[in-house]
C-alpha cells in the first residue's frame, strides 16, 4: 500500500502532503526533510526509486514538481509510477495544462482529486473520466448551498 504522497517543488517547498498512516507532525517534517534531501539531489537520468528506511519511495519529476509516493518493499514500483502519471493526467485535465501555481492556489482541490484517486493507500479509480465526473459532481454539491451564504468556495 501507499504510505504517503508528497509533492515537493524543485526548491524544496512542500506543495501537498497526504498521509495514509498515522505520522505525528514531528515525524512528517522529518520525513520531508530527509526525502527532500535525497530526491532533489538525484540527477535527471537516474532511476525513479529510492530505498528509504526499509521502504521504497517512487518519485517522478514533472516540470518543477516532484511527485513522491512511499510504498512497501514488495509493491510494484512501475505500477506506482503509473499511478503518479495517472494523477498528473487527471490534474492536467481538471486544471487545463496544470502548472505548479494551479496547485499552490487550489491546494484543496488537488487534495480532493487525490482523495478520489486513492483511498486507504490503494488505487480507487483508474478511469480519468470517472474521476473528472465525480469531482464535477462534488463541486456542484459544494456550490449549491454556498450561493445562499455569500461565501464562495473556490
Amino acid at each position, binding site marked *: *500500500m501507499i504510505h504517503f504522497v508528497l509533492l515537493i517543488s524543485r526548491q524544496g517547498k*512542500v*506543495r*501537498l*502532503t497526504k*498521509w*495514509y498512516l*498515522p505520522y*505525528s*507532525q514531528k515525524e*512528517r*517534517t522529518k520525513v520531508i526533510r530527509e526525502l527532500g534531501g535525497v530526491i532533489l539531489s538525484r*540527477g535527471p*537520468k*537516474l*532511476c*525513479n*526509486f*529510492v*530505498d528509504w528506511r526499509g521502504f521504497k519511495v517512487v518519485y517522478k519529476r514533472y516540470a518543477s514538481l516532484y511527485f513522491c509516493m512511499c510504498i*512497501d518493499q*514488495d509493491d*510494484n*514500483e*512501475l*505500477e506506482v*509510477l*503509473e499511478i503518479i502519471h495517472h494523477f498528473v493526467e487527471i490534474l492536467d485535465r481538471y486544471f487545463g495544462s496544470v502548472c505548479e501555481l494551479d496547485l*499552490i*492556489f487550489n*491546494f*484543496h482541490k488537488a*487534495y*480532493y482529486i487525490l*482523495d478520489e484517486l486513492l*483511498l*486507504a493507500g*490503494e*488505487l*480507487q*479509480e*483508474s*478511469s480519468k473520466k470517472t474521476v473528472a465526473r*465525480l469531482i464535477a*459532481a*462534488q463541486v456542484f*454539491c*459544494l456550490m449549491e*448551498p*454556498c450561493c445562499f*451564504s455569500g*461565501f464562495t*468556495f*473556490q
Partner: protein
Amino acid sequence: MSGPSLMDSLFQRSLEDLIKGLRQQLIGEQAFISKSLEEIRKEIKSTDLSTKSTALLKLSYLSNLHFHDMSFAAFPALEVLSSPRFSHKKIAYQAISLSFHDSTPVLLLITNHLRKDLNSTNEFEVSLSLQCLSRIANVDLARDLTPEVFTLLSSNKLYVRKRAVAVVLRVFEKYPDSVRVCFKRLVENLENSDPQILSAVVGVFAELACKDPRSYLPLAPEFYKILVDSKNNWVSIKVLKIFSKLAPLEPRLAKRVVEPICDLMRNTGAKSLLFECIRTVVTSLCENESAVRLAVGKVREFLVDEDPNLKYLGLQALRIVAEKHLWAVSENKEVVIKSLSNADPNIKIESLRLVMAMVSEHNVSEISRVLVNYALKSDPVFCNEILGSILSTCSRNLYEIIVDFDWYVSLLGEMSRIPHCQMGDEIENQLIDVGLRVKDVRPELVRVARDLLIDPALLGNSFLHGVLSAAAWASGEYVEFSRNPLELVEALLQPRTNLLPPSIRAIYIQSAFKVLVFCLHTCFMRGKNIAPSASLDNMPAGVSASASYESFEDFSVENGADAAVVHDQTCASAPITKESIVNILNLVELALGPLLGSHDVEVQERARNLLGFVDLTKPGILNSSIQEKEDSEGKGVETSKIIKLMHDAFSKELGPVSSSAQGKVSLPDGLVLKENLGDLEMICGDIEPPSSNSFSFGSPYEEEKDGLSFSNLQIKEANEQSNESTSLLAEHRKRHGLYYLPSGKSEIISNDYPPANDPTLQGDINDNTDDLVKLTAESLVPKRKPNHGKPRPVVVKLDEVDEKPVARKQPESRDDSLSGAVRDILFGSEDIPPTSSQSNLSNSSKRKGKEKLHTDPHMESKESAVGDGNSSSRRRKDRSQGKERRHRSPRKKDDKERKDTGQKEKKKGSGRHKSRQRAEEPLKVPAQTPVIPDFLL
C-alpha cells in the same frame, strides 16, 4: 450572532487570501504564519459555522504544508462536522483525517457523526465518512461502525461499495472480530463484474495475504478465475501478488498457476504487469525451470533497456533469482559488471550485490582484485560499499571461500591503503581473527603488518587507526616470523605515533615491548651458544658486513638470508648485534621518556613497564658488549634470566576465545558480580585472555621452521619489497632529523604526507570498464579446478559457537487474532458439523479461546445472522454458501483425508468414493494443511 463576529466573518481572509498573502508577505514567512494563526484561533471560536469552517480550512492548509500544530482545533472540527452543509463537512473531514490520532481526546465524540454520514443518502457524504474512518479508525470506532460498513459492502451504489471494500481492510486490522461479520460479503464481491470493485477487493486480499497467506488458500479458485479472466492490468498485478504469497505454500497450486502467468508474461505489453509476473516467478515459482528461463529472458530485456528504472528492477529481479539459479547471473554478467560504472548509485549497489553473489572459491581472488582496483577510482561512498561487501563476502562462514590466506591477508593490507577506505574496524577484526585462527598465515600477516606499520603516512588517517592497532598487535604477537624485528621496534616507536589515540598507542608500546624482548632473547641465546667459539663480529660472514655497518638495513638485505640460514634458526634474518640492540634500547628510552608523564594511564603504565625492563637489562647488555669478559658473566647471567623470563611470558600462544567461554567458568565463592566492572572494561578492552590450551615452550620453534621455509621460498620477492619500504623509512628519517631527538609531548607533527595510495600514481590501473569485463569474463565461469599451490590451511573453529545458529525455524504463520478470525470463517463455519474432533484438530489447536465456536458451528452462523439482522443478507449468504458448497463443501472431508493419506489418489472418480468411505473411519493423523478445493487438482 454578535456584532464583532459578524464583522469578523465579513472581513475574514479566505484560504486564497492566505495563500496570496503568504507569497507576497514582506515580514517573513514565519512571522506571517504566526500572525495568521492568531487570526485563525480567534475565528475558530466564532459561532458562525462559515467563519469557523474557513478558519479550519486555513488551519489545515498551514498544518499540511507548514506543519503547524492543529490539535487545538479538534473540537471546533467536530462542530463543523455537525453542519448540514456538504462544503462544511468536507472541510471538517479533511481537517480531522489530517490531525486526529489515537490519543485525540475528542475521538469518542466522532462515532455518531460518522455513523450518521455512513447512513446518509448522499453518496459523497458516505464516501467522506469512509475515507475519514480509514484514516482514524481505532478499536472502538471499528467495532461500533462494523454494522454500517457491513451494510455498505453490498450497497447498490458502486461508488460507495468499492470504497467500503477498501475501508474494510482497516476495520479488520483494528477490530479482527469484524471479520466474522463482513468476510462473506467481501468474498462475494470477488465475483463482481465491475473492474473497479474487483480491483478494490483484490487489493484488500493482496494486503491480507501479505500478513498471513495460509488463511486464504481456500479462496485460490476465485483468485485463479480472476487471474485467467481479468483484462484489467491493475487487477492482474494485485492477483499476482496474492499468488506469489500462496504458491509457496501449496505446490499443486504453483503448478496450476504457472501456465497462465507465463502466458501473461509472453503477451502483455505493460511493463508493470510484466515485472510483476517476473517477480512472482522468481520469488515463488522458482522450481519451474521453463518459467524461470522465460522470466530470466524478460529480465534480460529489462537489463539492456535504456530506461534506468527497468535496468534497476531487472538487477533486483536477478538478485532474487541468484539465490537459487546462479546461472541466470552468469548469463548476464557483462551487463551486471557494466552496471558497476552506471551513473546511478542505486544501480551500482545492486550490481555490486550481484557480482558478490557470483563469488566462489575459484574466482574470489580475481573478482576481489577487479573490485579493489575499481574501488580506487570510485567515489568514497561506493568505494566503501565495495570494500564492505568484499569483506563480508570473504569472511562469510569463517572464510569458507578463502583458500589462499596469504593472498587474503595481503588483500586486507591493500584495502586499508585505499584512500577512501573507512572500513578500518572491520579490517582490524579480520586481521586479528585470521591471525588467531589460521596458523599458516602468520608469517604473511607479520609481513603485511610490517608494511603497514612502517609507512608513516598511514598514521595520519584516523580511519586506519584500527587497522594499525591490529598490525601492531600482530607484529608483537607473532614477532618470531619477522625478518627484521629491530625495524619493527623502530616503526612502533616512530614519532608520528603520537597521532594515535591513547588506547592504540598503548598497543603499540606493548607490541614494542614484545618485539624487544624477542630481540634480546634471540641475541642472548645466540650469544651464549656462539660466544665460546667466536664472538659475533669475528664470524666469517659478518666481517665484511661489520665494515659497512652504519646501516644495518643494507646488511639485512644483502646477507640477511644467508645469515638466517647459516647462523640462527630463530628466523630473524637481520642479524641482531649488540650494537643494534644498544641503539634500540637508547631509542626506546628516547621515545618513551616523554610518555612517562602521559595523561592516559594506559599509555603511561605500558611505557613505564617497558622502560623498567630496559633499565633492568641495559647495564648487563652494555657490560657484556664492552668487556666481553668473564667477570661480567655474573651480571650477564642475571640479565639473560630476566630476558628468558619475559620471553617465556610472551611466548604463550593466544588462541581464539569462544564467546561462550565465560559461561563455562564456574563462579568462585565470594565473587560479587553485581559490582560495576564497566571501568575495567576500558582498561582491559584490548587484552585478549589466553586460551586454556597454551602451548609449551618448545612449540614456537616448530612453527619457526615453517616460517623459515616460507621465507626462503619468497625471499627474492620479499627482498625487493623490503628494499622499497626500508628506503621509505630512510627517507622518512632524512625528512625528520628530530626523529632521534626527544619529541616534545605536545608537539604536533605536521600531517603533510602524501596520501597512502594516491590514485594519480596508480597509472597502471585500467580505467575503462571494458577491461574490467574482459578481466572477469573468464574468471566468473568456474571452468576448471584451479591448481592451488598448497592445500587450504586449517582454520581453527571453536566448538559450537562459531557455527552460526542457522535459523531453521520455519516462519511461523502469524497467529494473530485477524488470521484466526479469517480461518474461522474459511475453515470453521462449514455447514457440516464435525463428525469427530480430529477433523478440526489442526484448526482448533490454533484457535485458543474460541472453542465455543467450533463445538457448534450452527451457533456461529446464528450469531452472525443476529449480527447483521437482515434477512435479505442472510439469504444472500446462504446462497453463496450453497455456491461454495457446490464445488467445495461436499468434498471437504475428502480433501483433508486425502492429504492425510499422503495424496495418493490422483484419479478423481473412484478415488473420491474410496476416500469418502475411509473418512468414516477414525483418523489417526491430524490434518496438517488447510483445504484446497479439488478444483485445483
